[in-house]
């Protein structure tokens, strides 16, 4: 695991974070529920809490879907390529490429569309950035930078948990075990198992 330079993290007086969605995206509740599940992956192992708010502009974490150039100097590039990016604490901005073929539920690995991307997998990864984690070289870590289309990878690996807990400590209810993704999902692409 790794951190951003300067090891930024959410200070002790800002551990109960709120998140909101860009109103212009007009997301369905089902799509918002994907992010709620993604935040729960991180709250389960840390003392952090995440609460959805209707007030996008006052939320700690601002989630928005954009296409192409959207004003932060990091333009999106259409289907596949760059999927999303997120800023380090305490900036809170979380941007996703609206051009992707996001799959909200169901088994993305059996999709008939080769460019189908699992929204929850990308959300769990980007939330790691929002909380202060950088990219990791550990392949089964959530914070590994790349993910093939038609792949689901949402469970935190030990590498992710070690990293986030060194920033925030552990959740008192966390029993210290992680289901590494090698036991739950297998990444398949072009028929070739990658784990």
């Amino acid at each position: 695991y790794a951190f951003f330079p300067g090891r930024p993290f959410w200070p002790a007086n800002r551990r109960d974070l709120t998140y909101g969605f860009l109103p212009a995206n007009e997301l369905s509740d089902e799509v918002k529920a994907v992010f709620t599940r993604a935040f729960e992956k991180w709250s389960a192992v840390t003392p952090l809490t995440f609460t959805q708010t209707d007030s996008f502009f006052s939320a700690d974490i601002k989630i928005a879907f954009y296409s192409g150039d959207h004003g932060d100097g990091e333009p999106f590039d259409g289907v596949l390529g760059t999927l999303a990016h997120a800023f380090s604490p305490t900036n809170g901005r979380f941007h996703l490429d609206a051009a992707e073929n996001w799959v909200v539920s169901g088994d993305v690995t059996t999709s008939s569309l080769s460019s189908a991307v699992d929204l929850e997998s990308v959300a769990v990864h980007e939330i790691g950035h929002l909380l202060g984690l950088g990219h990791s070289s550990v392949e089964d870590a959530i914070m590994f930078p790349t993910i093939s289309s038609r792949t689901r990878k949402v469970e935190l690996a030990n590498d992710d948990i070690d990293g986030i807990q060194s920033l925030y400590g552990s959740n008192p209810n966390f029993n210290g075990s992680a289901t590494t993704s090698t036991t739950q999902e297998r990444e398949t692409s072009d028929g070739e198992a990658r784990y």
Partner: protein
Amino acid sequence: RFFPNITAIPPWPLPNATSLAPWDAFKKFAGCQSGEKRDGLSKLKQYFNNFGYIPNSPTNFSDDFNDELEKALKIYQQNFNLNVTGQLDDQTLQQIVRPRCGNADIVNGTSSMNSGKSSSFHTTGHFRTTAH
């Protein structure tokens, strides 16, 4: 575009399904190595610049496979647990064209992905292993 569930995706390929993903063009560089000049290599350098492997260039990137690109490639291969060949071998290209997060792997010139791993690795080009 959101697909509430997998069955919602129409079985027929959507028009953009056949469009090239942004980095697919890099596949044509298979086997390319230092000293060569290939059309479009500048875009690969831009890719490595985006993700922190090549510093910003005052001028446009060239299509030459130069030392800068080779060094970037070796750090990339180390970060992604690939054989550190300094060449655009198949495994490395497969990783490069894979969809990914837009955040850089290297911020402010330090490779945050491999904090703690010996950076002298890529100068020797040899793995050091310890038996457990």
